[in-house]
């Protein structure tokens, strides 16, 4: 896809306003901004709201293309007749500006998941097709980041999953066009000055420096193999002991995609819509059947399901680990249930044969 290499550009920090103005005309421009003290991705109308001075956003940018609440279709009723109207806004063009490499990779994961199998999720896929991703390298990873431990060659300055890549050089950004889509945008913004050798070199140094700062290292090479035969290991009782069963780890995970579907009715106007809402396997009603039977009846099963889903089922189904290493679940769990500790405990288990399985009380 990379034809001829295009020279890097410079975007001065006081030029961001111009950048936004030129692009917001044709694109829904999403960028991180501070809302009541939390960094979140929002559609920007006033470029002064853009704040790239952040470690990572509280809520993951998946909510731009896979929002918390999303209409699947709307409908109108006329006596016994029903008319269904599908979404009409999926062709809108989007830019996600200033996203971290781990979150940018999460969009790959999400696209892979929604595209998998016989049924494709057209809503997400259409939006993703119409989205340009502009990443921003992490110069200062958090202590909870572990993108380098994962199987996708994660790196605080990874450029593979974006269309344009920015590196913060201090008073300006180095702008790296990566994909053809990215190059087309840079072409349109002819006022961006070209970068010089020193600036390009500084970006490389910052990238190496960032990598050396990643303090969390997890050994995930054998984890998937250890997990399968140890389904009933007592470790799951230990690691789920202080879990309180909220949805924080899953709602704030860039790769969690489980959703609930409800019908919302405006009965006075004979219309309504079917929406999907974020849901989580950590809630006890998630798998509760109408008969009353619940396959995952206690938090032991639910905690286990989340870890297995990311580190065992994902590799089995899609050949990739379902985690990007952003560290949000570690940082935000209210009871400090630390995924890193869980992985370490899993790695300590020696493979048991199926006959030695111990059932958890």
């Amino acid at each position, binding site marked *: 896809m990379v034809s001829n290499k295009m020279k890097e550009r410079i975007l001065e920090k006081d030029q961001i306003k111009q950048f936004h103005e030129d692009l917001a005309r044709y694109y829904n421009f999403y960028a991180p901004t501070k809302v009541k003290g939390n960094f979140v991705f929002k559609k920007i109308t006033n470029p002064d709201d853009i704040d790239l001075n952040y470690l990572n956003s509280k809520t993951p940018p998946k909510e731009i293309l896979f929002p918390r609440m999303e209409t*699947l*279709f709307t*409908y109108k*009723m006329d006596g*016994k*007749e*029903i008319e*269904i109207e*599908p*979404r009409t806004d999926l062709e809108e063009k989007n830019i996600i500006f200033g996203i971290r490499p781990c979150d940018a990779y999460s969009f790959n994961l999400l696209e892979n*998941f*929604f595209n*998998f*199998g*016989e*049924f*494709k*999720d*057209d*809503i997400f*896929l*259409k939006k993703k097709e119409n989205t340009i991703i502009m990443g921003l390298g992490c110069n200062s990873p958090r202590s909870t980041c572990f993108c380098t431990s994962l199987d996708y060659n994660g790196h605080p300055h990874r450029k593979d999953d974006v269309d344009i890549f920015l590196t913060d050089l201090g008073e300006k950004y180095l702008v790296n066009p990566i994909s053809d889509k990215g190059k087309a945008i840079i072409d349109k913004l002819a006022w961006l000055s070209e970068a010089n050798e020193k600036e390009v070199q500084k970006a490389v140094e910052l990238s190496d420096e960032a990598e050396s700062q990643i303090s969390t290292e997890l050994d995930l090479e054998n984890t998937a193999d250890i997990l*399968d035969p140890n*389904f009933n290991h007592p470790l799951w009782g230990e690691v789920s002991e202080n879990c309180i069963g909220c949805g924080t780890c899953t709602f704030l995970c860039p790769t969690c*995609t*489980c*959703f*609930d*579907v*409800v*019908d919302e*009715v405006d*009965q006075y106007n004979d219309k*309504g819509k*079917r929406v*999907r809402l974020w*849901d989580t*396997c950590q809630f006890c009603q*998630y*798998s*509760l*059947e*109408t*008969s009353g*039977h619940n*396959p*995952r009846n206690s938090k032991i*099963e639910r905690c286990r*399901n989340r870890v*297995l*889903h990311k580190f*065992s*089922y*994902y590799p*089995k*189904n899609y050949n990739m680990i379902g985690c990007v290493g952003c560290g949000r679940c570690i940082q935000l769990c209210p009871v400090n249930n630390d995924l890193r500790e869980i992985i370490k405990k899993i790695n300590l288990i020696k493979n048991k044969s199926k006959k030695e399985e111990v059932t958890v009380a």
Partner: protein
Amino acid sequence: MLSPYIPMLTTIKSIVSENEANDIKTYELVFKNKEDEEKFNYIPGQFGEVSLIGKGECPIGIASSPTEKGSIKFTIKKMGTVTSAIHNSEVGDTIGIRGPLGNGWPVEELKGKNVIVIGGGFAFSTLRSLIYYMLHEDNRADYKDITVIYGNRDCSEILYQEDLMEWEKREDIDVALTIDCAEEGWDGRVGFVAPIVEAVNPSPENAVAIVCGPPIMIKTTEAVLDKLNFQPEQILESLEMRMKCGIGKCGRCNIGEKFVCVDGPVFSQAELREMHGDR
């Protein structure tokens, strides 16, 4: 790309009550759009996500056989919000369907084999679809002996009584009905499904057993089939889980890495033993 979330609209053509308690009814649905009907190619064992638009959706096994043209039948028990709302519907009302979903009974692999269909209670609907399919004149020759064992709590609960009477008259299918406890006016077999299976004593040679019913019935029947030397690959079951999207995207129906709505709901005993998961 047509959205897999948008239901096709159908009209209720007829409603038949299947039991005395009147909480299990078979709905016959006709597609409003001829193209939808042509696209809806299903095999027995598959299910559809049935919508009462405004109330919600639920996954229901298809009770009609693909050989019955012109309409689709669903047998629905009144249990939750959506099913109760469907039970309040009348002929002429609109119902949405998404489907066909799931993997269905492996009708191709069953060819040339003796098929033993074992059902319990209300779970018989997709078995009806399978039996109708196999008995159809185009298909009957492909299958060897067909044995049906169907148990219920009492005779007021037996579904598809007209179909069963037709089948009992036929030479090319053996039907054994049973109810749990003896009742006045019932001169058929009495007993739970598992001991009746043992009494019928089907041979495992070149046979496949299809088991569908409440969890306890499945468990006891599995034990009997094991005793009769059926191998795990010869036993097929249809699982139930809570489902929402039915297309493997919402995540909740997983057993291990498999989704019941996409990789199932039909699994062999051999596959189920390999699956580590909660169910």
